[in-house]
């Protein structure tokens, strides 16, 4: 029996999320004596997944399917699961996979759990931990159906190398491609040359403490030095200082980078709910009583307009070492 992962690509290359899914699948497969199979479309470096424990990649080489369509990809994954006899299927929490998730669950008649943060617990039942109440709680969720679909929360497991010998096979699923006409993509607006919030290992985020949009130069510069993405609190997006796509929090984007830097953000409960999955949080705020200091790992009490430029200089020196 196999565990199947849905491997997404980014500019033709296997996405990092797929490597994390593979690592998770392999850790569980080793306990249960299964192998890990990946399915994806147009993966130019499909063999890079062997490094993370995938022993077979079903690579779809079809120009239409190389573009995402939730219904087409759900058919593709469901057929791969059928062919491989996989009862456990894993997807990431990218926007595309989140869209496809319930469509695939319906096709497979699978019990579907999202925001999964741990391997299935040891013992008789199939039970996984997942985040609920926007990071404010954890629920041990038992899946009762034979087929199981899990959506792993980003950065909750990590990428673990575990090389195996593998093969890449051409896979030609029988997909009804009329869905590409039903949902006709007319335009894609995507910021290029910028690190996107969903992929970022480091996020530099700023709030109302920065006083106005004209002061974001130092935020972008800090992000540049760190190779980070930029984000903001809700009021900052609401006032139009920054685009809505940067709004993080309970009602914005949920993020979980390795390092989240919060500058001039008070740390309201709704803000924290979207960011406290981050591995490390650094807070820069001139009010020592700001609630964010209670949730963070590192803190600097000080005026952002003084601390951030200094930090940029020091980081540049550090990077040049």
């Amino acid at each position, binding site marked *: 029996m196999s565990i199947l992962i849905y491997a997404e690509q980014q500019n033709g290359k296997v996405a990092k999320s797929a490597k994390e899914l593979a690592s998770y699948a392999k850790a569980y497969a080793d306990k249960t004596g299964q192998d890990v199979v990946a399915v994806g479309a147009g993966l130019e470096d499909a063999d890079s997944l062997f490094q993370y424990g995938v022993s077979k990649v079903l690579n779809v080489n079809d120009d239409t399917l190389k573009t995402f369509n939730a219904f087409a990809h759900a058919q593709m994954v469901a057929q791969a699961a059928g062919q491989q006899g996989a009862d456990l299927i894993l997807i990431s929490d990218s*926007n*595309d996979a*989140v*869209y496809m998730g*319930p*469509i695939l*669950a*319906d096709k497979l008649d*699978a*019990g579907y759990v*999202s*925001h999964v943060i741990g391997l299935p617990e040891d013992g008789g039942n199939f039970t996984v931990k997942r985040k*609920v*109440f926007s*990071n*404010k*709680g*954890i629920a041990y*969720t*038992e899946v*009762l*159906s034979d087929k199981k679909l899990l959506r792993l929360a980003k950065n909750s497991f990590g990428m673990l190398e575990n090389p195996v010998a593998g093969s890449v096979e051409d896979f030609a699923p029988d997909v009804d491609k009329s869905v590409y006409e*039903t*949902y*006709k*993509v*007319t*335009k*894609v*607006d*995507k*910021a290029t040359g*910028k690190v996107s919030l*969903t992929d970022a290992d*480091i996020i530099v985020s700023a709030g109302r403490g920065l006083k106005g949009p004209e002061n974001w130069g130092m935020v972008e510069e800090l992000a540049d030095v*760190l190779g980070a993405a930029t984000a903001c609190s809700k009021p900052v997006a609401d006032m139009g200082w920054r685009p809505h*796509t940067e*709004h993080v929090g309970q*009602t*914005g984007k949920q993020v979980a980078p*390795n*390092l989240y830097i919060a500058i001039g953000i008070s740390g309201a*409960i709704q803000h924290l709910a979207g960011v406290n999955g981050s*591995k490390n949080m*650094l807070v820069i705020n001139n009010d020592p009583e700001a609630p964010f*200091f*209670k*949730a*963070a*790992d*590192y*803190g*600097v*009490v*000080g*005026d952002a307009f003084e601390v951030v430029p200094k*930090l940029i200089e*020091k*980081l540049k020196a*550090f990077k040049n070492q």
Partner: protein
Amino acid sequence: MKILFLMSSVPDTTSKINFTDNDTKFDESGIQYVINPHDEFGLTKAMQIKEKTGAELVVLNVGTAKTEPVIRKVLAIGADKAVRIDADPKDSYFTAVQIAHYINNHDEFDLIIAGKESLDYNGGMVHGLVAGMTSKKFINAVMGLELKDNNMVEVAREIDGGKEFIETSLPLIIGGQKGLVKEEELRIPNMRGIMMARKKPLEVLPAVEAAVKTKIDKFEKPAPKGAIKLVDKDNLDELIDLLHNEAKVI
């Protein structure tokens, strides 16, 4: 035109979350319930369409009698009638079966508006499961929707790092979110609306038999953070050292 709004009632975003009964139940004491914040954008969009086209707007919720005050709030904002399917929405599959059953028996809706995710159990799946069970079209994470001629719609969907514009046709189910309408356009009930809502119909229907596919055995709270390390603003070298050697993030 007829619009169905799928409303999830969730704890107010400022709620402190606790568990009770040996950590097997969510502690509802002191919790205020609100319209799921992601759903609010779709509700306002529905109101805008209603005002422009004269569409009828029905709100549907799967919930116990406890959700009625929140349903009344939707009526006060302007929905014409409400339907409550009387059940505890145990898991997403169960909830989706209830909604799909209703839609399949009232197949008159051109647009079915949900939110992308409920901010209680954060499933992000009821809409897509309903789409599967009713064989309807579905687009998730919708941050823009414009009705065109001949039942066509243009929809903007969030993708990683941007937006994708999709042309499709009604009938359609969407999972809405921020962006669908502007923040300052979001509707709240006014006095007149609240008075009128009392007279609007709220139909209660029995649930249909359905299984569950998942079950929560127990809850726990996330592990508390260790103590913060404060670094003096005049000693940022120490900060860089901590980020590099301890956190290993730079």
